[in-house]
């Protein structure tokens, strides 16, 4: 008995064959079935230990995911720290009423959805273009296209704190490269909300595109050379190959990823909007999104009511969108659905 780990870990395939010989039905067929009869024994030897093995992570999920879900309740009370969550007075939808009557609710919703839409479209187009370009270079100087892919992937590894340093090196009013290179004097980019939809889109694409290039490259590689060779024999140009062979095959993958992104359109990337903008108050007209609003209401103003109302609103609408997106994905391609 002592050696099972080493033996099996080292050569699973051989072991598999040896074992299968002395058992009727073979490994695959016998999977999951236990010795005949005795469900009680099966429970003790199989289900209970598995439940115990799963338990630590299940508890962690309970505490850090499910308990906060119950906390949505906070959005419906007039929260007083001294009285605790359940001692505070029930006020119904008053917090939500406040949020939307002040106009804040609509503004942050608009910013979140518009900005995320920009990011989704820009990242999709750029990633597809780069993946197709890399594919063209695949059969020669492979190391060079691998090098391109690596560099494009690099920003994925930087935290938004570091990204905010990078952006500042470009846009700092006194010392930034942009102002010096183009002789713009001390143009204060951090005071002009109009530019930031573009700036943040560029940053978001820069940071995220490498990830999607890898996803789409994997999709293209899965096509296999036969189809493309057939197209070549038929005399199809590169463009026609892309339009009529590669893109149609990638379409399901693209649609699935797109739907899942749209499902998350209500969730903004806090680091991007908070750190990269230096949390500059002057930029709020275009960069204040649901997540930054919640954070600010809670930590700066201590307005738990507004913060929790915005949070509950985000969670519920986000949930509906994700479920809807997943339902659409499922209809197209059950394999790719989240659940």
């Amino acid at each position, binding site marked *: 008995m002592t050696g099972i780990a080493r033996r099996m870990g080292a050569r699973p395939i051989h072991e598999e064959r040896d074992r299968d010989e002395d*058992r009727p039905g073979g*490994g695959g067929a016998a999977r999951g079935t236990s010795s005949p009869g005795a469900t009680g024994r099966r429970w003790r030897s*199989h289900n209970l*230990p598995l439940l115990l093995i799963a338990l630590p992570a299940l508890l962690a999920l309970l505490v850090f995911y499910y308990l906060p879900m119950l906390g949505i309740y906070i959005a419906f009370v007039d929260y007083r720290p001294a009285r605790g969550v359940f001692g505070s007075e029930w006020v119904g939808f008053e917090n939500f009423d406040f949020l939307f009557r002040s106009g804040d609710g609509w503004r942050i919703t608009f910013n979140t959805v518009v900005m995320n839409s920009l990011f989704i479209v820009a990242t999709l187009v750029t990633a597809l273009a780069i993946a197709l370009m890399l594919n063209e270079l695949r059969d020669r100087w492979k190391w060079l296209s691998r090098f391109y892919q690596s560099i494009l992937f690099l920003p994925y590894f930087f935290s938004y704190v570091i990204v905010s340093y990078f952006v500042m090196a470009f846009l700092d009013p006194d010392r930034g490269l942009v102002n010096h290179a183009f002789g713009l004097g001390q143009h204060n980019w951090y005071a002009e909300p109009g530019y930031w939809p573009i700036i943040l889109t560029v940053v978001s694409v820069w940071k995220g595109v490498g990830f999607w290039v890898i996803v789409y490259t994997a999709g293209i590689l899965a096509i296999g050379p036969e189809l493309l060779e057939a197209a070549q024999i038929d005399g199809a140009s590169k463009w026609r190959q892309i339009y009529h062979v590669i893109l149609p095959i990638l379409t399901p993958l693209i649609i699935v990823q797109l739907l899942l992104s749209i499902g998350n359109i209500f969730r903004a990337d806090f680091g991007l909007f908070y750190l990269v903008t*230096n949390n500059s108050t002057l930029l709020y007209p275009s960069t204040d999104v649901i997540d930054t609003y919640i954070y600010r209401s809670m930590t700066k103003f201590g307005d738990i009511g507004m*913060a929790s109302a915005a949070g509950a609103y985000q969670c519920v609408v986000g949930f509906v969108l994700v479920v809807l997106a997943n339902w659409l994905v499922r209809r197209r391609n059950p394999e790719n659905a*989240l*659940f």
Partner: protein
Amino acid sequence: MRRRLTVTLPDRAGRRQAPRLSAGRLAVHFGLLLCALAFLAPLMLVVSASFSSEKGISEHGYGLLPREFTTRAYEYVMKDPSQLVQAYGVSILVTVVGTAASMLIMSMLAYALAREGFFARRALSFYVVFTMLFSGGLVPMYILMTRYLHLRDSLLALILPYIVVPWSVLLLRTYFRALPSSVIDAARMDGAGELRIFAQVVVPMSGPALATIGMFTMLTYWNDWWQGLLYINDDSLNPVQLWLYRIITNVEAISSNPALAQATSAPIQSLRMAVAVLAITPIIGAFVFLQRYFVRGITVGSVRG
């Protein structure tokens, strides 16, 4: 190999054989090269700023090459590296402990979910997936962490919120399912219990999968500043990213106040860039050596959706 095969067919030999350096291919190379350089530019900007003199920076701004090359900023950091060492210490501790604990309990859960015949498999899978769909949001989490769990200014506040990542659990489950079930059955026949099968059979067979998910977990912990921003006020508990964030806000405060800026002899502009470079270095190292694990993880993850 395939190429040699096609060469024998005369009508497409010209096309398939060694794609020559046509103008089109050169253009694609040129475009991608430009793209790659643009992607690296921010990094170059920060690195060269860290090697520039204060005077050079204030006169010419940040550049892709150092202005008046000097290592003064790094000397300044090294003169009193206590903050740097402390922040690194916190980050390393959180990353190592967090990754180890997280990988252990996530793979245990994933193993149970992967076992066919486990009665709660479907229900518990849903229990995991549901956390990806719905969340309580920031406010309840914050109140839970500070008021009920009393984790303010505790390193546990940096570890626990990420200890189970549902997405990683599902990926691990996919990996474990792909293991040959006959091996597990055989171990059971030998009388091994579930925990023993997990520890001595499944884990040793899943090296690459665990490494892949482990890399993502490590990256999450190392790059995190968000939990710190929420729960850490004590500067001695700053992880590297949070420390960097505090520096950028402090320097903004100093440089917007001329009196303060005069009073300090520190090369603040190049100094903060030097600190940023010191924080980036381990990430670049990890990137160079471990990139293929990440690529594999993404590829597997995306195939499943």
